[in-house]
């Protein structure tokens, strides 16, 4: 088993993935590092990748007019980052800034989409995992927006 396969097998995000599907993933993946302060992507850029953070952390920033960047979420060890590569218009809606030096696996979105189209079972397995993550993120964001620590009205 090569290094990348071993790494992916150990990530909770891919738990239960069949070996042949892991092999498809590995074909689209590479290891990368990024230093604190750098950006993985910027709002409006083409979304061609997704990331699995193995170490370090990355923040997602939005820009509200007249305000500085607002951090809405951080992604850290063992968590996936980015699903805009899955849906048209394939553009990022956030800036992703590395907060702590990061090691990650980077997946080529176009390569993955092509494999999903060819092998719908593989595609379904991947979409199931992203749907779960999206639901969790939307739920967490809703609680953040509720401002539960504000004064009771």
């Amino acid at each position: 088993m090569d290094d990348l396969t071993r790494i992916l097998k150990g990530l909770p995000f891919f738990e239960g993935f069949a070996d042949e599907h892991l092999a498809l993933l590995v074909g689209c993946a590479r290891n990368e590092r990024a230093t604190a302060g750098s950006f993985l992507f910027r709002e409006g850029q083409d979304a061609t990748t997704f990331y699995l953070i193995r170490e370090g952390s990355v923040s997602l920033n939005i820009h509200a007019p007249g305000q500085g960047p607002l951090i809405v979420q951080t992604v850290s060890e063992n968590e996936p980052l980015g699903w805009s590569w899955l849906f048209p218009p394939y553009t990022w809606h956030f800036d992703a800034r590395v907060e702590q030096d990061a090691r990650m696996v980077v997946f080529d979105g176009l390569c993955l989409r092509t494999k999903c189209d060819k092998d719908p079972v593989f595609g379904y397995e991947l979409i199931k995992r992203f749907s779960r993550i999206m639901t969790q993120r939307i739920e967490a964001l809703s609680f953040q927006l509720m401002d539960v620590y504000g004064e009771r009205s």
Partner: protein
Amino acid sequence: MANAPDLMAESAVLAEAPDPMRPRLFRIAKFTHNTHDTFTVALEDLETGAGIGFRPGQFNMVYLYGVGEIPISISGDPQDRSVVIHTTRAVGTVTKAMRSMRKGDTLGLRGPYGVPWPVDRARGRDVVIVAGGIGLAPLRPVLYHCLAHRNEMNKLVLLYGTRSPVDILYREELESWRARFDLDVYVSVDRGMEGWHGNVGFVSTLIAKAPFDAGNTTAYLCGPEVMMRVCATELIKRGVPDHELFVSMERNMKCGIGFCGHCQLGPVFICKDGPVFPYPRMRNLLSPWEL
């Protein structure tokens, strides 16, 4: 006549018993502003010059003359009886008046009251403390207790969520706890801003990241009801048995000792049956959330 009650003796005892509704006078020995809307007072009994004994999770009824009386948890170290510590968030009439007090001013206290956190239950287990906003204050005594009895439990984890970096309570203490090798501290804010390099996300998202053996964990939760509900659900999802979860409840109070019914929630009085309850007892009484 041999069995007739000795009315004279009984009324003498009653006359000597302290009136549970009469506050004792305390002087502010130290006043600290923690954040833009929270502050901490260290109080000394005017008569004894000392604090009072209490158990983690208990509260005092704090009386400001001419303003009103409110329940505030004791947030100091249960081992330290030299002062009584209260950390308060200024939200309304009494708490805002309290914020304008200074060292040397006096106020009234009744207490300590209420059912404490069952800290002895943590022996031989992992302990997870989940605090939201000002909810860290009632849980700080649990942390002091656990640190003083550190060898009695396995992992000790603090998960703390608050609104934004400027709302982080006990910042310096959190830093010193974070530096310890025998305590895992995770802090998350709902809204990050430039210069903040820590976690951003609802406190419940920390539960999946923290290292603890869910099946052998006791968890103590305090914060807004929605937060406690969401976090309890996440902890149970991770495998913590629901009877090992404890929550602290808040309701407006008047007497604080089970007389007036002001704090009634369903079948319980928060002041005397709580404020700390096993989660299964509160599950259906905590405010619901809908998405």
